[in-house]
């Protein structure tokens, strides 16, 4: 494979200073290193010709994997099994707690066990269409192709997927598709898949191939001669700064939806690892493509710290509605059938309540903004199970969703068997992330990105149950091959020295930043700033965006950032367990990434998937894509804090015809 030539080419990128949307600068076009051959043969072609590393040489090569979610744990375990030296990092106190654990609904695979017409091609097409034709064909095809292997792997590990009485695996359907290809383990699919990967990882820890660094946060990427050489990490228990060198660094650090503060992500989720790599030269792609999940619980109070997700699978049996009358203050059960607006069924008759996430979320926002919202803050819509309970019986519904109904009652105190749930869109999943080529390598040679941390596979909108899949497939089946390919001509390369000047500088910079945070001694907490930034982004770069709003947001974010550096308060010193310092570093990065999100949204003058620009919509409020001018991936280069540089990866569609994405 011509990996190296591509690498050289990447470094030849030059900047033309042409100013585009806002003051962003137009760069050059970039290519993704896609293997030749028919779509269906590309991955096999890659594997047939990829470089290999012999077992004897693997133990001389060291790989750092940051992240122990599905992507990181599966990759670290697999590389360990192959015999590489692996260092595995996570910020939680145990790898088993990575946020993959929270995924409820399921994982897709085109096994066609239901004999309902599923195939690799159909899954590929659904994903490409679901992503509004803004993903790479070759990557998506590979995702569908490897999906079958994942189910085999997970079952072998003991993942207790739902079964038929006969003992065969069961499936259900998920939003945006018409076949049943979702495998699930009650409402805890992510947990069970992650435990499988975690156990495989711990087996390698026991075998001595993987060394675990829990409660460590990566704070910088170190590069030597333009190649990844290691990381700087902070031991969160002691505050000490550590250097770790490796031949390859993989970032599997998850999504950054927590930038909105209120989101379905865990409190510790962050963008710092990918952002700091970005500042060292890795391009960020599609930064503003963020999925808002339509069925999360609404914000109920001012101190709320997160929005809990109710699995999308609920939409299989629940019907979504709002009152036909504005500001209707009647209790839901007092509103008669003919005064309810089942707006998804009305607007999208063929998909109805199973319309894809971006469309469902936007339709909810449209109703809420128009004054039809329900609940104490008028910021929700109803998800009603009364029809399903009447048709199937309470027992059947309890069997399918019992734990979700329980969770709903715990949080709200409301019994959803008796009264409809209140739901609302919430920041959830980042389609954007580090730009990677077909090999999952970033623009920095030797730096790979896997799972939600990369931008690949989902286009402008991710289909439900496709991201557990992507994280697993990246880690178990793709990166182990592509990393071997990269390493195959480096078996004689010495491990970079952790006392190299590049490590000295990176460590000094990290320490200086931490000291600077501590010395501000202002009067506002990092969390207060995070909440303010989140509100700004919800308003200006959330479910819908417009030119003026985005420009305003860029300015407001800069002002807020200035205030942060003047008024931040951290009560303790840097070299100790210091939770406020951890948050400060993450929020500091969020300001910068938030700004890039606005640039990304501003320069994309079309609506596609989750990215909805108010200026580009049809008369009935549907997204208006512009394939002539925007059939590309935006890949951003850091420009030392100046207006960022936009490089473009053109998307070529050879196997599908670009079509209007209609779910009507």
């Amino acid at each position, binding site marked *: 494979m011509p990996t190296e030539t591509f690498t050289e080419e990447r470094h030849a990128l030059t900047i033309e200073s042409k100013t585009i949307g806002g003051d962003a600068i137009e760069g050059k076009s970039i290519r993704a290193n896609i293997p030749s051959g028919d779509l269906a043969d590309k991955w096999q072609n890659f594997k047939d010709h990829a470089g290999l590393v012999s077992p004897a040489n693997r133990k001389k090569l060291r790989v750092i994997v940051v992240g122990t979610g599905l992507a990181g744990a599966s990759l670290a375990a697999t590389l360990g099994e192959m015999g590489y030296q692996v260092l595995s990092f996570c910020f939680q106190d145990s790898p088993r707690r990575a946020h993959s654990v929270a995924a409820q609904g399921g994982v897709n695979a085109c096994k066609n066990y239901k004999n309902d017409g599923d195939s690799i091609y159909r899954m590929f097409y659904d994903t490409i269409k679901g992503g509004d034709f803004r993903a790479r064909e070759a990557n998506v095809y590979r995702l569908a192709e490897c999906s079958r292997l994942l189910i085999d792997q997970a079952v072998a590990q003991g993942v207790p997927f739902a079964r038929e009485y006969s003992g065969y695996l069961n499936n259900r359907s998920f939003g945006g598709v018409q076949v049943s290809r979702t495998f699930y383990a009650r409402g805890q699919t992510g947990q069970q898949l992650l435990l499988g990967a975690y156990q495989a990882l711990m087996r390698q820890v026991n075998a001595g191939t993987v060394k675990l660094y829990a409660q460590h946060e990566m704070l910088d990427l170190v590069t030597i001669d333009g190649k990844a050489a290691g990381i700087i990490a902070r031991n969160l228990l002691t505050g000490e700064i550590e250097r770790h060198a490796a031949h390859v660094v993989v970032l599997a650090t998850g999504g950054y939806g927590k930038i909105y503060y209120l989101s379905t992500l865990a409190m510790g989720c962050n963008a710092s690892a990918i952002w700091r790599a970005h500042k060292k030269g890795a391009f960020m792609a599609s930064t503003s493509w963020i999925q808002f999940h339509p069925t999360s619980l609404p914000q109920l109070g001012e101190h709320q710290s997160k929005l809990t997700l109710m699995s999308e699978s609920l939409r299989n049996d629940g019907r979504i509605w709002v009152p036909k009358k504005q500001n209707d203050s009647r209790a839901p059960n007092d509103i008669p059938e003919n005064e309810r607006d089942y707006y998804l069924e009305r607007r999208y008759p063929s998909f109805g309540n199973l319309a894809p996430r971006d469309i469902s979320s936007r339709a909810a926002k449209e109703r809420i903004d128009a004054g039809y919202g329900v609940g104490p803050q008028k910021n929700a819509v109803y998800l009603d199970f009364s029809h399903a309970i009447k048709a199937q019986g309470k027992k059947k519904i309890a069997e399918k969703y019992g734990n979700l109904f329980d969770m709903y009652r*715990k949080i709200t105190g409301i019994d959803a068997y008796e009264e409809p749930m209140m739901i609302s869109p919430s920041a959830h999943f980042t389609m954007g992330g580090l730009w990677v080529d077909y090999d999952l390598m970033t623009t920095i040679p030797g730096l790979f990105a896997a799972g939600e941390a990369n931008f690949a596979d989902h286009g402008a909108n991710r289909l439900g149950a496709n991201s557990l899949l992507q994280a697993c497939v990246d880690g178990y089946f793709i990166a182990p091959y592509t990393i071997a390919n990269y390493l195959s001509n480096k078996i004689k390369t010495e491990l970079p020295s952790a006392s190299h000047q590049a490590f000295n500088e990176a460590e000094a910079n990290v320490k200086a930043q931490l000291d600077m945070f501590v010395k501000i001694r202002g009067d506002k*907490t990092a969390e207060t700033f995070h909440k303010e930034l989140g509100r700004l982004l919800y308003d200006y770069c959330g479910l819908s965006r417009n030119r003026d709003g985005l420009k305003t947001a860029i300015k407001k974010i800069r002002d807020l950032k200035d205030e942060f550096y003047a008024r931040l308060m951290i009560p303790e010193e840097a070299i100790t367990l210091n939770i406020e310092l951890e948050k400060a570093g993450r929020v500091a990065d969020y300001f910068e990434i938030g700004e890039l999100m606005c640039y990304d949204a501003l320069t994309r003058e079309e609506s596609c998937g989750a990215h909805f620009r108010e200026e580009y919509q049809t008369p009935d409020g549907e997204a208006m894509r512009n394939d002539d001018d925007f059939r590309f991936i935006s890949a951003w280069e850091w420009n030392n804090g100046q207006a960022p540089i936009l490089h473009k990866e053109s998307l070529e569609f050879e196997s599908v015809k670009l079509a209007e994405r209609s779910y009507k």
Partner: protein
Amino acid sequence: MKLRLKIWRQDSATAQGMFKTYTLDNLEKGMSFLEMLDVLNQQLVTKGERPVVFDHDCREGICGTCGMMINGRAHGPIGGITTCQLHLRSFNDGDELTIEPFRAKAFPVIKDLKIDRSAFDRIIASGGYISASTGSAPEANSILIPHDVAESAFDSAACIGCGACVATCKNGSAALFTSAKISHLAKLPQGRAEARARVVKMVEQMDKEGFGHCTNTEACEAECPMGVSVLNIAQMNWEYNKALLLGA
């Protein structure tokens, strides 16, 4: 709503800890318990004081990170939930709450309410897996698992590794946690091959970590947020005795 909080403060693993009392006013019933601690911490930090360190992450009852003793009960007064799922509507205006870390010999306190549960990871590392390396798996439907068996394995696999069972047990035993993993894997056909070796290694590791012995008081099941059953302990004992008799 107003609450008085008596919170365990301890500067470091080696420092002497003590209770400190804080009063919080204007709380809302709909707030979660951890959001109340957030409010307290915001106030402390704004004043330049050290915030209360506590374990948490997902805040939806699944990562198993959170956990503290609230008025003497693991995860607070309501059964079947984690600390992050506890809401202030479970308390009355004016209540005093005593908040302490999970305590056990094998779970040393790190700072305030934060504890070290890495012993759990080491128990899993000792044998809590099926050795199925990537690439070796057969076609998924070639392993038939009857519905009820899969559901029962799931019940055991549901453990989130929070440690409430250990903190509740007067012996500080990790029997419920360890047995849940042993049973999960032993119930499945693909887990049987290693069942004997697994149970021996995991029980050995559990003892090595300094967890106490199980004397069947069953307090663990009552406080487990995931409803993991003590029948798992019975299965662990059965598997263990079988392994001793037949050889691991």
